[in-house]
Each structure stands twice: as C-alpha cells, then as structure tokens.
C-alpha cells in the first residue's frame, strides 16, 4: 500500500477555559491506497470525511493511529522533515473561492509551493507554473490575473494546478466539485480522472456524491459518524452493497427508472452527535434492521469477497 492508514482517530477535546464534551470525529479508521489508485471516502455531513483527509496529510494532528505514506509514518516526522515531505502530498480544497488568496496573481499562487520548497530558479518556477496551467486547460495569460477574475470551475482548476505544481505523488481531494454547477462538475471530474491516470497519481477522493465517486474511484470507503461501515472495490460496492447504510445511500441516488424509485429506502432523522455516539453499532438509531444486540455489540469487520468488508451484525 502506498498510503496506509491504521486505526486513525481524531478527537476534539475542549481546550483552555471552554467546557463541553469531547467530539469523537474519527474513530479507529483503517484503509489503504495502492500506488496509482483512487480511494473514495463517502458519507453524509458530519461523518468525518474532511477530518480524515486533513489528518492523513497532518494538516491537523490525529489523536492516535498511524498514517504511512510510502512506508514512512508521517506522524513521527520532525517539523523540518514534514515540511520537506509535504512536497509529495497535496490537498485540493472544496471551496474554490476560499482556497486562493485574493491578493496574489495566479502566477504567484502557482509558484508559491516551489518558493516554499526552494525548487529551481525563478524562471524555472514560472515555466512550471505555465506548464501546470496548461495541464488544467487554462490559458497562459491567466498567470498575470487575480482569482476574482475567474469562475468557480476555473478557480477549482487553478487549485488543482497549484497542487500539481509540486509534482506530488499523493493528492487528497476534499469534495473538489461539490461547490460547482453540475455542468462544470463533469468537466472538472473528467479533468481530474484524466490527470490522475496520466500522471499516475495516488488519490484520496472525498465526496458525498456517490455518482461522482463511482466514476473516479477504484475503492470506496463508506463512513458513518467517523467509523468505517463498509469498504469495497467500487464496482462491487454498487453491485452488492452489504451494509444497510450503504444500501440506503445507494438507493438515494436519483434514478430515471420509476420501478426503482418505489423501492427507495429513505433514512429518517439526522446523524447523531459525535460527542455522544450511540452504544454498540453507531448506525442502529437509524437502521431499518436494528435489533437489541446492535445496542450492545460493536460490530467487527466481516468479509464479503475480495477486498470487500463491512461492519454489521445483522447482514
């Protein structure tokens, strides 16, 4: 595994004078990404997707667990080593309006990473910036313009270009298309898929849109309340979902077939608070199949074929 996440947990405890419960945003999550593959993280709002994405790159400090990238545990790196290692791993942000500095030109934004890592000469950096801009299909004259002159889709492509400018091997894409119009979504997703294949990138792709995930991912991790519900190769997951939560998510995908629409399972209620998660299986409060044992036993991972695991007592 190129990226190996083991028993990752992130708890947000109140600090200083503030009071309140500890929020268990991510609890004991494990998964791996082979080199050149894309793993999708799906789950509804509050399921800990972004927390995992940021913990994996150590943009926030995980509470416990291990994150190995190409064999090195990035959690034990010193500040200087981590800074150097950051060249190999990059983050693409969800909000294209917040992720680019309004006070920098596109050229400055794209060369910033190389400035920080002190790569090449000024001319080299400029050339590389033009190169990645071409890679995301933007005109070269964008280099001298400011972010406010571009649309959301264009900005998102610039954000992608910024990540690519350091020639990373691993990219965490945090809902890269959820803030865009549907027509632009397809364009950006196609571009990302194309670049991922062409450059052989390893990617962690975070999304709440299962249709997008199906298209771009090799493996899908389904999260609920910071815990893994099911992991499966994408095709397998869509063909044979095991976990009742996965089934509910899949049945919520809009379908033009009216017969399918009738069988839809609608989840009721909201995701419980991660500061006081339900006992046993965390999904039991909204699960159509929940029984009394679900409140007592924390379900272990069961296998359902090659690389397909799920955590449910009842299936």
């Amino acid at each position: 595994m190129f990226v190996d996440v083991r028993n990752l947990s992130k708890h947000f405890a109140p600090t200083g004078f503030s009071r309140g419960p500890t929020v268990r945003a991510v609890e004991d999550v494990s998964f791996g990404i082979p080199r050149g593959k894309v793993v999708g993280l799906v789950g509804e709002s509050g399921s800990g997707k972004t927390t995992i994405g940021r913990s994996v790159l150590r943009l926030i400090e995980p509470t416990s667990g291990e994150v190995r990238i190409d064999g090195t545990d990035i959690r034990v790196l010193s500040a200087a080593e981590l800074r150097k290692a950051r060249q190999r791993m990059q983050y693409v942000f969800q909000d294209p309006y917040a992720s680019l500095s309004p006070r920098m030109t596109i050229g400055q934004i794209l060369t910033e990473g190389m400035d920080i890592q002190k790569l090449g000469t000024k001319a080299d950096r400029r050339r590389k910036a033009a190169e990645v801009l071409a890679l995301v299909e933007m005109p070269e004259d964008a280099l001298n313009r400011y972010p406010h002159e571009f649309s959301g889709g264009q900005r998102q492509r610039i954000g992608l270009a910024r990540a690519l400018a350091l020639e990373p091997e691993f990219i965490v894409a945090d809902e890269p298309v959820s803030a865009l119009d549907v027509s632009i979504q397809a364009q950006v997703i196609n571009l990302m898929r194309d670049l991922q294949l062409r450059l052989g990138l390893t990617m962690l792709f975070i999304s709440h849109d299962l249709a997008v995930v199906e298209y771009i991912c090799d493996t899908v991790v389904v999260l609920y309340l910071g815990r893994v519900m099911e992991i499966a190769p994408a095709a397998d997951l869509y063909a044979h979902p095991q976990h009742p939560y996965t089934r509910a998510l899949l049945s919520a995908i809009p379908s033009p077939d009216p017969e399918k629409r009738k069988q839809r399972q609608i989840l009721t209620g909201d995701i419980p608070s991660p500061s006081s998660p339900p006992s046993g299986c965390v999904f039991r409060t909204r699960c159509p199949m929940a029984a009394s044992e679900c409140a007592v036993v924390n379900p272990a991972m069961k296998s359902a074929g090659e690389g397909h695991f799920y955590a449910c007592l009842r299936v």
Partner: protein
Amino acid sequence: MTARSAGPIRRAAQRFAMNRQALLGLAILAPILTCVVTYDLWWGFGPNDIDLLSINRGPTAAHPMGSDGVGRDVLARLMQGGRTSLMVAVISVAISTAIGFLVGAFAAFGGKFADAGLMRFVDLAMTLPPVIFLLVLASIAGTGIGPTIIVIALLSWPVLSRMVRARLLELRERDFVVAAKGMGAGVPHLLLRHGLPNCIDIIVVYATLQVANAILLEAGLSFLGLGIAPPESSWGNMLNAARSGTVLEQYPWQWMFPGGALVVTVLAINFIGDGLRDAFDPRSGLN
C-alpha cells in the same frame, strides 16, 4: 505576456481617487507638506533668527505671520514646528505600527501561551490612563524629540496589535493559508506572504489616523511643557508660548497660525484616513 491586471491595492487606489473628501484632504495636506519640508530653501528667516526691530509685531510684508515676543518670525517657526510635529508623528507611528504588528503576529502564530501572555500585557497597556501614563513616561524619558517619539510610540500600539491578531487568527484558518502550510510553509512565509498583505488595509488606515492623533498628542505634551522644549519649535510649544493672557488677547497671530495649522493638518489627515478605509473596504460605502 499580457500586462498584469489590477490587483486589490490598485483597485483600492482607484476607489480612493473617486472619493472627493479624501481628495480634498490630499489637496490640503500636499501643499502643507511641501512647504514644511522645503521652507528653508525659499524663506529668508530661520526659526531662531531674532529680529530686534520687530518684537510682538503683527503681520507685515517682512513677517507675513507676524513675530513673537523675542522677535522671531512666526512663519519660519510654524514651518519648522510643522517639520518637527510631522516628523515626531510619522516616526512614532512607524515604531508603534511595527510593535503593534509584531505583537499581534506573535500572539496569533506563537501558540496558546504566547497569545494569552501577550494579550494580558496588551490589556494592561490599554488600561493605563493615557494622560497620566504620558506624564509619567515623559517625566522619566525627559523632553526633546527622541523621548517624545518614544513616549507617543509606546502609548499607541496596543489597539493595532489587537486588530492585527484578530485578522491573523481569522486568516490562519482560511483555506489558502492551510494550503500554504500544506505546501510546507513556515511561520515567516505565512507572515510575509499572507499575513502582511492581508493586514495592509488595517495598517495603512490605522497609521494614517494615528499620525493625526500623534500630532495632537505631541501638541498636548508640548503644551504641557513635556514634549518638545524651546528653542526647538513645534506646533504644540508655539501654542504653549502663547498661553499668557496678554499674548492671547493682544498678539493673536502668535497662536492663531499654529493652532490653525494644527487643526487643518489633522483634519486633512483624518479625511485621507477615512478615504483609505472606504477604499480598502468597498462594502463600507454600501450601508
């Protein structure tokens, strides 16, 4: 390569150029500055040249603003006084801006304990009653240009450090700053490439308005005899010399001109400061 398009600073400058009140301030301040800086090139009298034939004389052709009790030309003293007052104001504001920015930056980026420590120190500095603090400081530091600059600088940084800290704390969580961290940026890079450019509006507006404030502080200190001491002239100590009833009633040109210069300059700088604030925050004009 195409030309670089207008950045945030240039767009702010364009908005500033549309603001009539700010332009008026600039139109008043520019000639005052020019005169004050260049007066010794074109004005025949020095600030301490004594003309014994003209003591306490009203405006004449030779002394258009009259002369004072020892026969010194009021116009020359006014120019030199403006030079002193503006220099004291600008230097003290530069120092206090630097202190304010650095304290704010350390508080925002130095971790919890640095933040808590520095902010309690700022609280302390803010709770000191300004006039008393000035009097005590001035009596320790003494009179003259250097001590006056230090006294004013030490009094006016806490507000800026608060504003800078708030801006930087907010900035720290913004995605583009997280992105810079994600590319391996250390604190110096974050401060110089993101912190400073995004605080520039606060700093420019604060510094401008603070220059006006510092001129008044200097005048107040000198008026109390704690700032710039004669024979060095400043607008404050010219007013101080005109304190007596006789001067006030019989020789009005000795206090009217420095007083007027003080009011007009401070007003003009405030107009410019307001204009800069509106220029940097386009939303402020909408409500």
